[in-house]
């Protein structure tokens, strides 16, 4: 991988900056790799910044930097050479680190400025309040950070770098898993953990030498402990039988699974964004919602969305219950429980009674339906100047505070001879503070409407879409308001009040609740979950699996004959940070002693003693 490129380019030796953690350059079988690493480990102790001494020139494909220090001009590489150079740079660990840091910084503005994606109204307000700054912020896509060109560029580069990192590492690890553990070092006593045992009670079948037999037993023992083992009989290795063993190959596997899963997550997110959709709908008690485009109040499709993706399920709100906190003084009256009873109908026609609550979405027709808000919808009847019913039904009002003082807007385009408009408040528990009507509690104990009324042209006929929650009064004439002689309209349930000038009347006939529903369909969801679990597993495996090498040598003193004791020597080397190496050495020693029942406490030690 890239580390190697950096190293092979110009570094004079394979010394690693991190105590042998990444001594992958030490090819198996080369033997000396172990020494380098061991020496490094010793050298490391005590210094804070171990990287410094191993600082090597940055990777130039042809070692260009060595030729001219401070000379920034690139050597003539040709097109292919340049591409390779760029690729090497991009996939280097340093670039990955830089891009990661850049990604962290680039994500921050999205929390400082309102984002169109999640809060378009806040963005509009921001730009309205500060048009000059707003325009510039918008130009740099600071209201769309996570879909901006610069943010995308960073994470795409990072993922290209990531893929460029994964591929060679996968290949390399594939080979590493097929190569035997490295050659047995000449002097095990140079390893950070090592020891010797005298085996005098060895009683083994004499096939091919006692030392080989002991070596095979040691190999079996290590194999059982999870090491990959290579037996090296005395005959083939200058008369010294030895075992080379290594464990922790899954560390790199975990690391690769982790990084690959990150790519998987990104791909799944992209798929979900393209093929998914989401929509909002306000549903009053008694109403039904069918999953078609026209039933949504607002709808945002993915780029590859097709209308036929909408499965025609339906949801009817039968009843909506709210629980209030009546116990504590600090949050008295707060809503602490919502419960919507709904009847659902599957695309297949199957009907079912279900409960919809916060944290308990409906899963239906491949989509999920969420309860995201609620409010009151006073039922009113409006008669026009000619005495005909021009409007009848519930009017969803928008809660403004925690006691559900709610803003209500009603447009009656069908009224004759003049169109009528109403705007004002719905108060669930009406009260008065300083002569101003306020709500005292969010529960509907004393509901009341306090409205202004208007007549004139509502401007709905031109066909330009309007916000149903905003009444544009510019073209209207005021009929009722606090500032007029006629005063504002104050209507209690069951009451009807006449509008001035014979323009009609309005009755407050009943009260319903409504719920705000979000409908989401995201086909990327499940793959994201699967890749996330894989990533987490891979991460844990790669961070907590120690990589260790063990060598065991068995020596036989040829002169003293068959009854003489055998000497067993072993050494351990950690690849990477491994606080448990010492423990492993103790365990192995105990196992050896048990195997050959040697009570002797002969030399076990750490290299740095």
């Amino acid at each position: 991988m890239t580390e190697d490129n950096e190293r092979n380019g110009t570094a004079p030796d394979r010394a690693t900056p991190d105590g042998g953690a990444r001594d992958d350059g030490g090819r198996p079988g080369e033997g000396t790799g172990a020494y380098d690493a061991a020496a490094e480990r010793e050298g490391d102790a005590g210094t804070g910044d171990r990287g410094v001494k191993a600082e090597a020139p940055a990777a130039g494909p042809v070692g260009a930097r060595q030729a001219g220090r401070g000379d920034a001009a690139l050597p003539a590489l040709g097109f292919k050479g340049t591409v390779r150079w760029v690729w090497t740079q991009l996939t280097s660990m340093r670039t990955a680190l830089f891009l990661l840091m850049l990604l962290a910084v680039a994500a921050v503005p999205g929390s400082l400025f309102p984002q169109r994606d999640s809060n378009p109204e806040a963005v509009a307000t921001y730009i309205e309040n500060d048009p000059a700054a707003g325009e510039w912020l918008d130009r740099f896509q600071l209201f769309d950070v996570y879909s901006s060109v610069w943010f995308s560029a960073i994470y795409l580069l990072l993922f290209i770098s990531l893929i460029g990192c994964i591929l060679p590492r996968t290949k390399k690890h594939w080979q590493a898993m097929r190569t035997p553990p490295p050659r047995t070092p000449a002097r095990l006593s140079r390893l950070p953990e090592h020891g010797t045992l005298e085996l005098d009670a060895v009683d083994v079948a004499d096939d091919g030498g006692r030392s080989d037999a002991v070596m095979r037993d040691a190999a079996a023992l290590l194999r059982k402990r999870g090491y990959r083992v290579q037996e090296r009989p005395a005959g083939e290795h200058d008369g010294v039988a030895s075992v080379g063993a290594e464990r922790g190959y899954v560390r790199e596997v975990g690391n690769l699974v982790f990084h690959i899963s990150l790519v998987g997550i990104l791909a799944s997110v992209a798929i979900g964004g393209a093929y998914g959709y989401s929509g909002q709908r306000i549903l009053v008690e008694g109403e039904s919602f069918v999953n078609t485009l026209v039933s949504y109040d607002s709808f945002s499709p993915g780029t590859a969305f097709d209308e036929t993706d909408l499965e025609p399920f339906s949801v009817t709100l039968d009843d909506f219950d709210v629980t209030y906190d009546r116990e504590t003084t600090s949050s008295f009256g707060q809503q602490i429980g919502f419960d919507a009873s709904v009847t659902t109908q599957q695309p297949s026609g199957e009907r079912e009674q279900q409960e919809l609550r916060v944290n308990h979405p409906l899963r239906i027709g491949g989509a999920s339906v969420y309860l995201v808000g609620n409010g009151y919808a006073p039922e009113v009847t409006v008669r026009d100047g000619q005495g005909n019913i021009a409007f009848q039904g519930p009017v969803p009002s928008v809660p403004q505070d925690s006691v559900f003082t709610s803003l209500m807007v009603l447009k009656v385009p069908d009224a004759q001879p003049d169109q009528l408009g109403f705007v004002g408040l719905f108060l669930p528990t009406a009260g008065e503070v300083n002569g101003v009507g306020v709500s005292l509690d969010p529960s509907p104990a004393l509901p009341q409407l306090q409205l202004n009324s208007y007549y004139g042209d509502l401007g709905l006929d031109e066909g330009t879409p309007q916000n149903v929650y905003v009444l544009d009064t510019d073209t209207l004439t005021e009929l009722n308001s606090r500032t007029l002689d006629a005063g504002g309209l104050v209507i209690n349930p069951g009451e009807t009040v006449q509008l001035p000038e014979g323009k009609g009347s309005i009755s407050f006939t009943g009260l319903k609740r409504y719920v705000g529903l979000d409908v989401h369909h995201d086909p990327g969801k499940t793959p994201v979950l699967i890749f996330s679990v894989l990533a987490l597993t891979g991460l844990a495996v790669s961070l907590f699996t120690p990589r260790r090498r063990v060598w065991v040598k068995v020596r036989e003193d040829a002169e003293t004959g068959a009854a003489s004791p055998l000497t067993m020597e072993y050494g351990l080397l950690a690849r990477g940070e491994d606080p448990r190496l010492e423990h492993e050495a103790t365990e192995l020693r105990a196992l050896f002693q048990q195997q050959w029942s040697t009570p002797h406490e002969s030399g076990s030690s750490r290299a740095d003693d």
Partner: protein
Amino acid sequence: MLPVINEQLGAYSDLFMLLAAFAYAAALVVFAWDLAKSNATIRTIEQEVLREEAEQLATVGGPAPSRPAGRPVLVDESMAYTAASGQRNLARIAVVLTWLAAVIHTVAVVTRAIAAARVPWGNMYEFLSTGALLVALVYLIALLRKDLRFMGVFVTLLVTVMLCAATMGFPTPVGHLVPALQSPWIIIHVSIAVLASSLFTISFVASVVQLLQHRRQARLAAGGEDRLPFLRLVPSAGALENFAYRINAVSFVLWTFTVMAGAIWAEAAWGRYWGWDPKEVWSFVIWVVYAGYLHARATRGWTGVRSAWLSIVGYACIIFNFTVVNIHFSGLHSYAGV
């Protein structure tokens, strides 16, 4: 359906919380005293150890200790307790005080949970007080196996500050959870988040001490005088770096889990698993910074001091996420704030 709130018990819990804060403050004072007296302590311990060794030599006649004379080991590289470390009496008192504080603190947190009849992780007061308890407990449990008393000042300081912030900055009477928090995920998501943050706190302290120790070592190596002699009670910068790395590795995995669990919960509560809500943004930033930290450890020229700085920056992001984002940024997580 909803549990019953016990406001009386809640008031007792508040009282215990205050008591715990005082006890931590007392421990803090004694820890600081221990370090301030470290010159004298070091001298006494050295003399003691040298005398013992001399006696041993006289009686056993064994080989001389390989250590250079006059420099007995005060701190082990693996941060194990040494024979000499038992003699820091003030530090021992401070540890006992910290245990006492942690017991009172546990009572406070548990009574709070009983009073509210739910897990005590519903608002800033509760996050802070539970988080502080976890920091203290993680530290105390680590102390059982490793001699981390050199961190005592920093840890008790942080815990005291957290408790003061909770009781003074965000006093919140016991109450019900808002509907969005009424989910089993609160137990999984928040507990792991608080645990991860507590571990990050410990490694943050280790990284800060590592930087101090690094500067001191550099100064000594350059022949300068020892301006921070109490750091002789502290392991080497390299040992501290490895210690911080190990803890950061564990807490990074926990944080990854926290973010994932949060995403699963967000999917159930809000209809999308990820929406770049300010809280989500900062959780992501934290995750990326610590991922950077782990990469830095594998990148030439970035180990040691630089990676320690990354660990500190990561912790600063955690603090920011917990304070400024909770209080000043509006988003879906806002209810969980004050």
